[in-house]
């Protein structure tokens, strides 16, 4: 197991139950140092429980776990930065004092701590509130303060549980840049989200958890290749229905019109480039592109796999609605 040394996190058959409820069921995973991993899955999938076990806040009922080469995070807590999903601040404490308290708790020296805190506050445009009480801050501001608390001690491993929830687009971008910067500096970053698009835009490796099980563990590009739907999106210039016209083209196996756009399924034997050219020749096209799988599609594909064909479509629609409701709520919360 020579590879174990370079793994920031290793889990082997880790299982956790709460009474009769199985929260995490036998997860195996390896997260190499310096990588940027996304944990995705709907609410209640077991992401937070998995992260809490990594943080040694909860302990697994069975299985093995190592964090930064140690048996548990207890021994390496000061090298980990953690932004929990359930996060808060001391309401009556001043912002700078809170950050200094957290820094000291993480084992930082009192000397040089204050300039460091101020530098971070400046970077997230909060320098002017350093003397305000935490309760006077908006939710988004508090979240930025909490992010600072998790990276202030320059940890090697950064775990962020739903870091973007409750942030407006501007702050979301700011936070994303800060996370990317940590990654660029060689830190291992893991973050969880139930909004799949967020993971798509930031991660290079995805772990998907559903019902306490790992259902996907791959790089984003591999996932895209593996789950290539072999389909083309076509938008036409005229409003006239072109479904039959497209379906008549050779090598096209199915056509669906969805919100004005044709989703054209290409037969597996036919090259997609070739199919695109055939379509362009046959009808007036305003835009045409190869359909790329979204994580949402991948997730639904995985979850509904094995269910019989009759229920397949119905299940997919339900899941999509669930996921959509999840991310909708998220957007509303952030606005």
């Amino acid at each position, binding site marked *: 197991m020579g590879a174990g040394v370079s793994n920031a996190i290793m889990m082997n058959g880790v299982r956790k139950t709460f009474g009769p409820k199985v929260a995490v069921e036998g997860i195996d995973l390896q997260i190499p140092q310096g990588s940027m991993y996304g944990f995705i899955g709907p609410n209640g999938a077991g992401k937070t429980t998995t992260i809490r076990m990594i943080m040694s806040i909860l302990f697994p009922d069975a299985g093995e776990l190592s964090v930064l080469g140690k048996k548990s995070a207890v021994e390496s807590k000061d090298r980990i930065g953690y932004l*929990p999903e359930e996060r808060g601040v*001391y309401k009556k404490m001043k912002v700078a004092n809170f950050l200094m308290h957290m820094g000291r708790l993480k*084992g930082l020296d009192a000397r040089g701590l204050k300039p460091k805190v101020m530098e971070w506050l400046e970077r997230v445009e909060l320098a002017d509130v350093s003397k305000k009480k935490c309760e006077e801050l908006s939710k988004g501001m508090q979240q930025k303060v909490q992010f600072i608390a998790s990276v202030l001690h320059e940890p090697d491993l950064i775990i962020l549980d739903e870091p973007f929830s409750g942030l407006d687009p501007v702050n979301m971008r700011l936070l994303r840049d800060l996370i990317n910067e940590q990654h660029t500096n060689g830190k291992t970053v893991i973050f969880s989200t139930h909004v799949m698009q967020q993971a798509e835009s930031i991660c290079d490796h995805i772990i998907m958890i559903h019902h306490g099980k790992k259902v996907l563990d791959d790089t984003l590009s591999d996932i895209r290749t593996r789950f290539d739907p072999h389909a083309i999106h076509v938008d036409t210039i005229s409003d006239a229905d072109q479904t039959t016209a497209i379906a008549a083209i050779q090598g096209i196996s199915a056509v669906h019109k969805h919100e004005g756009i044709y989703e054209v399924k290409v037969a597996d034997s036919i090259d997609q480039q070739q199919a695109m050219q055939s379509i362009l020749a046959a009808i007036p096209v305003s835009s045409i592109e190869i359909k790329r799988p979204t994580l949402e599609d991948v997730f639904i594909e995985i979850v509904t796999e094995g269910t019989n064909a009759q229920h397949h479509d119905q299940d997919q629609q339900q899941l999509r609605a669930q996921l959509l409701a999840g991310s909708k709520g998220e957007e509303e919360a952030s606005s």
Partner: protein
Amino acid sequence: MNFSKIARVAGREFASTAMTKGFIIGALVVPALMAALIPLIAILSAAAQPPADKGTIYVLDHSAEVFDDISSRLSPEEVRQRWEDRAKRASDFAKGMIGKAGDSASDSIDNAMSFIKTPEFRIVPTAPDADIEEIKAQIREQLSTKAALEDPMQKVLAVIEIDADAAQKLNDEEGLGSYQAFFRPKLNEETVGEIESGIRWSIRERRYDNAGLDRDMITELANVNARESKEITEEGERKESSGIATFLIPVASLVLLIIATMTGGQYLLTTTIEEKSNRVVEVLLSACSPMELMTGKIVGQMGVGLSLLVVYNSVGIAALIAFNRLDMISGQTIILFFVFFLLAYFMLASMMAAIGSAVNDMREAQSLMTPVMLTMMIPYFFFMPVVRAPNSMLSTVSSFIPPISPFIMIMRVSSTDPPPAWQIAAVILVTVIAVFFFLWFAAKVFRVGLLMYGKPPNLRTLIKWIRMA
């Protein structure tokens, strides 16, 4: 366990509780103010005394021999002399009690004494055949006119009618006579007392004379002036513990112990619930373990309780020094006091930490708090029987039952009849074992409870958590 983290948590816990205006005002300034107010109240009540009574006293002396004595006894000079002597004695006594406390205290006593106003009487004999009803009518008239008198001494304060046989028996069949006094209403209590005692003194004086007895000799014979009583103890002798003192120290110790433990415990409950409901707890758990967090919090609030104890104890000891009764407590008692505080506090704090971690808000904590509060009430019920008989079966047995053991034991230890050393040691041992059990229980609940949101647990869920952790 990382001690620097525990210290860090404890430091924040202490600072956020004790370094606040609310705490300093509530816990320190208010009692200090009350202590300062007590002498002020004494001075105010002295200053609020009504003006001294001045006026005429008519004496209808049927015996024809008591009047002269009354006249001289109640003359302005003699009355003033007696009042001054009395004030001086009171002031000397008070100064003796305060002892080394300093001149400022005796000054304030002198000040208080100067507020006492001496009454002034004019003693007027009536004709032996005068009608007493006429003089009474004079008082009624003065009361009804309300107009101010030209000379304040004209105000009639009282009419005294002295029986013919007040000082000497007229025949052998009947005993000695007496006197009857009629007073104007709303006279000062002291004035009435002065007049009545003056009359009784005068009648007695005549009686002694008539019986051929020497007044000074009787005074001398009647006076038995005992020296200060002492109690013999194993070590030697000490001043007799007066009734109030036997109760004072144990009850003060008990109340102080309960206040200090409850203060720390309450704050611990509040801050734990706060951290949980603020969702700051998991942020903290990313930096330290639940055990480190709980230990830090308990230690921090222990500091709060201890600082209360140190302040109040110092005040108490200062008071004992001031009254020169430092012999009422020993250094050993003070040390034991802190030991019992720690034991009591750790048990209560464990319960508070467990409850605080298990619930979502203060309201939910109430139902779980009820048994804890009832337990804390038990020592109050035991107060009387334990202080009366510190070594009775009840006292001994109850001092071995945690978590009330420290409270019962502190009453016994600070009583005038402390328990034997082996009992103290045994109680401490038993309680230390209990403390570990309480802490173990709390740690289990704390670890699970902190991250549980939603329905507050009942006892069954708590037990399940303990199995889980």
